[in-house]
């Protein structure tokens, strides 16, 4: 199976979502911004009184880079599950777009790129905020920004695969409860996984968020080399997953 999209036409789809986003960004930006800060305050400050430090890092500094990772992930998956699903089914936006020179692969590529863009956008905003609170030790954290695009593509791919198979919008509850919430809790954001039975770390190896947390934390501490494995993991997985959203969405949309 070949994926054949035209970058310019995919960009037109990206641009449509961007145009809509710039009309509504104030409300959605605020919402996406409040939640991570609440986590940081509740866990970092609340729990931080009892847990002074982990691996020599103050507790709030330990979790802060993980919050960059999780907010970027949630921004992408909300967009590429609920957002994409609503555009596809209720609004019939995809049907309208496909009557223009935009082809199905252009459309899917554009949606994936938009999802990845949200990962960069929200990850970067949280990065700025936690840096302002001086919770980041190294300015090397900025190197994580391009990697947020790759991780965003992976989360977008996974979300779109779900969009292509769910019978209705309520089914996303399974996706969030059974997949995203466990991943959020067991990807090493709040505690190191090596304190748990080894099976947990083995499962976590297959979770993209686990690698993104490693990357953000390593970069925040200035240890870029510690994240090389995770970066390679991203490069491999983003390509391995790519055919599935295209193949499944073609079937779903064109029947």
């Amino acid at each position: 199976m070949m994926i054949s999209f035209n970058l310019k036409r995919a960009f037109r789809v990206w641009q449509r979502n961007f145009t809509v986003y710039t009309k509504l960004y104030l409300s959605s930006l605020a919402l996406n911004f409040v939640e991570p800060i609440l986590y940081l305050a509740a866990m970092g400050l609340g729990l931080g009184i009892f847990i002074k430090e982990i691996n020599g890092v103050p507790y709030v500094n330990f979790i802060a880079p993980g919050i960059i990772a999780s907010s970027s992930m949630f921004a992408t998956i909300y967009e590429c599950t609920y957002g994409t699903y609503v555009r596809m089914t209720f609004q019939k936006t995809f049907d309208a777009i496909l009557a223009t020179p935009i082809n199905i692969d252009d459309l899917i590529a554009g949606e994936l790129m938009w999802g990845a863009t949200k990962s960069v956008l929200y990850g970067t905003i949280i990065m700025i905020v936690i840096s302002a609170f001086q919770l980041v030790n190294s300015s090397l954290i900025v190197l994580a920004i391009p990697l947020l695009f790759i991780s965003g593509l992976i989360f977008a791919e996974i979300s779109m695969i779900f969009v292509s198979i769910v019978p209705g919008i309520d089914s996303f509850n399974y996706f969030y409860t059974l997949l995203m919430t466990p991943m959020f809790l067991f990807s090493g954001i709040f505690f190191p996984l090596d304190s748990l039975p080894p099976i947990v770390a083995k499962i976590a190896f297959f979770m993209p968020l686990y690698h993104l947390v490693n990357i953000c934390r390593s970069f925040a501490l200035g240890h870029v080399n510690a994240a090389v494995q995770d970066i390679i993991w991203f490069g491999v997985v983003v390509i391995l997953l790519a055919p599935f959203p295209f193949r499944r969405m073609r079937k779903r949309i064109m029947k």
Partner: protein
Amino acid sequence: MNIVSAKALTKDYGSFRAVDAIDFEIVRGEVFGFLGPNGAGKTTVMRVIYCFMPPSSGDVRVFDIDVTQDLAKIKAKIGVMPQEDNLDPDLNVLENLIVYARYFDIPRRDALHSASELLEFVELDGKAKAKIEDLSGGMKRKLVLARALINKPALLILDEPTTGLDPHSRHSVWDKLNQLKEKDTTLVLSTHYMEEAEKLCDRVAIMDRGKVVTIDAPSSLMRIHGGSLEDVYLKLTGAALITP
């Protein structure tokens, strides 16, 4: 010159054959109508023409290009008014046209110019900033028509353009379509209204259960079979209702 030519066009949905090896040709400048009961395959045929989905088999050419080959090139010259009003509810009236124009790579300045002309053409020039949800059914339909014209299409495909409209809005849409016809746009439409077919169409294809029963001018159909176009339609379709 044929704008559309279809030979043995067949479309299956799983084990259901929606369109069964039909042949037809649509000539430049004509208004061609597909008539037939619900489920006859009209929408499927039109979707194949505007490259929304490929045929299961058969040879379909639009502007002499195979619909399974260069889709983008065909779609660049087509305007589509689908059965459902799939306007973008996240955008206002004018933005709907401008964003749509971007899909065709139309520069912003040209798009703004065409958009204001088209809004005037469909009598929505006072509504540029209105939300889609605040438009009436007739206004939405006319905005969909305006959107279909943003790329100055050589072929306009209209799937039940006036279904659900009040008589005033229906006549208003007919009036617009007649103006387009005079400007040499080829029109392909499907309809359940025999009056619409008689008023607008040079030729009609009457479809029933995935097959084309006949293709002819409404006037010659009425001459051959006798009665009104509706009588002809009732005589030629719905065989399933009579014979078990």
